[in-house]
């Protein structure tokens, strides 16, 4: 299936990528993210031997990208419009693991403030669809998982609308392919189609393997919006400029 792995132009043709290409793209995406979003939690590549009993006998690219402990404020209706900027400012104050401790201390004081919800995002490669898939889960600051209704309130308006229209085919509760626990998943069946369109419109990109590195950035610029995460424009520009 991955015969064409070496040549990058395949992405331009059908919008899919191989697991190796996913791994390469993930590294590049993670680097860029760190550079442009120093205040946000980083995307970290989690190598995951599917078979734990065998230590290092695995393919290196077996794994997923993980961004954990992103926090979203529970916004009221009026704040809805400037949601994404608010949530980013919120996160500026917190750094990775320390943040959880901070919130533990703050819980008592916080009770009459807006509640902060923590989100974990994983980008996992789907060998069936040959595209990245976004998995996520969410919990309150006390560690209790959010119900789907509560998550829906955190999603941007356009997503909750879509959600009410297609309950079973847009975001569903599914098992995380590596962790074997219930997570939420954005359905990937249309991904290759719109990725194809993204790259078709930009034929200049379609050379010498730049596309691979660009893939996840482009992908996330669309997918991230579904869950209210935006990519800084600079991240896309520089990525192209670096290579052209």
């Amino acid at each position, binding site marked *: *299936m*991955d*015969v064409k*792995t*070496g040549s*990058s132009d395949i992405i331009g043709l*059908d919008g899919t990528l*191989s*697991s*190796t*290409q996913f*791994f*390469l793209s993930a*590294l590049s995406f993670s680097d860029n993210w760190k550079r442009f979003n120093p205040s946000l939690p980083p995307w970290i590549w989690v190598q995951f*031997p*599917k*078979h734990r*009993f*065998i230590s*290092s*006998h*695995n*393919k*290196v*690219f077996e794994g997923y990208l993980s961004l954990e402990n992103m926090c979203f404020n529970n916004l009221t209706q009026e704040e809805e419009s400037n949601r994404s900027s608010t949530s980013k400012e919120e996160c500026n104050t917190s750094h990775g693991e320390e943040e959880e401790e901070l919130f533990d201390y703050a819980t008592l004081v916080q009770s009459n403030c807006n509640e902060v919800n923590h989100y974990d995002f994983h980008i996992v490669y789907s*060998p*069936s*669809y040959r595209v990245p898939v976004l998995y996520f889960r969410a919990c309150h600051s006390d560690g209790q998982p959010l119900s789907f209704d509560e998550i829906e309130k955190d999603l941007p308006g356009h997503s909750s609308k879509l959600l009410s229209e297609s309950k*079973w*085919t847009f975001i*569903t*509760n*599914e*098992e995380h*392919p590596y962790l*074997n*626990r*219930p997570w939420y998943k954005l*359905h990937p*069946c249309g991904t*290759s*189609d719109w990725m194809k369109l993204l790259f078709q419109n930009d034929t200049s990109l379609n050379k010498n*393997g730049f596309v*691979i590195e660009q893939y996840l950035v482009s992908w996330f610029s669309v997918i991230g919006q579904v869950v209210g995460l935006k990519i800084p424009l600079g991240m896309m520009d520089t990525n192209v400029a670096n290579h052209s």
Partner: protein
Amino acid sequence: MSEAHKFVWEGSIPLQIHLHQSEITTLPPPPPALVLAPRIGYLPLLISLIKPHFSTTLPPGIDTIWFEYKGLPLKWYIPTGVLFDLLCMEPERPWNLTVHFRGYPSNLLLPCEGVDSIKWSFINSLKEAAYVINGNCKNVMNMSQPDQAELWHSVLSGNLESYRRVSSKLKLGTFEDEYAENINPVSTKSQQSTEETEVTGQLKTGRIPVRLYVWTVNKDFDDLEDAPQIDNWDKVSYINRPVEIHKDDGKYFSLNDAVRSLLPEFFPGSSFVDEEDASINRSTGEEEENTCDPMSSFQPLENAEIKLVRIQGIEPKLEIPFSWVVNNLMNPEYFLHICVCLKVSEAKALQ
């Protein structure tokens, strides 16, 4: 479609279902319920058969049905036959399961909102299978509501005729069967025969949707009775990777080839891995040091051995052509579910 397909659809497992003792509020405790569960079905669909046995003894509350086997909560979206093949090494008949109507372990199991959850889990799997086979899932997405309903009802009721009629519209075809004598589109009863030939003719990928359930043992056992029990889902590796049918030198692609290609970690000789390795060499620049060095030092794990392969309750010979297995033993959502037990020993230390 073949006689084997018919056997798969008619296959069922006798269950003896006990209500968990924490949910028994009456004396004497209710007797267990005996139910025949279709292999291709899903456990929560049995609720209408089971509930009447226990409804009078349940404590107050809202029903959320789930099952366990020897303390292991059962994943409802895995077809019942696959659960049985995987968890009951030495087939136990009837299969003794415990049912719960309260206390859903939502940290472990996906929520199940009744039939709708199961239906959509099925449809989403079907979509995934269609994508693997055709490179898109338009035919499933564009299915008319009545067709979708008929397809699902055919699975619920085990109606193979009705299933064949509707599923043929999905144009997922059968896979090119190299050694089949029975694939003759004209003779099939289906009215879609011309479309089917069309599809077989334009098979682009040869990718087969497979769900592989692997568990490993490190001690040999002669008798299935002595096989270690799976008491935790973390012991099962669930691998959802398509199999690409390779045809080299006129040699057919066997079930053995398929299983090995899905487990490159254990059987590094497969061409699947070689291509990946080669490509990473070609396409990485600076990453090369990190990514390639550990791999080049890999030693083939010669002492991984396929101990058992079980599909639809049978243990086919590994030399059997994979295309036959797919065409005859796949589940209605077009996935082939394979249970594999591997024996792995650490550098022969245990022998």
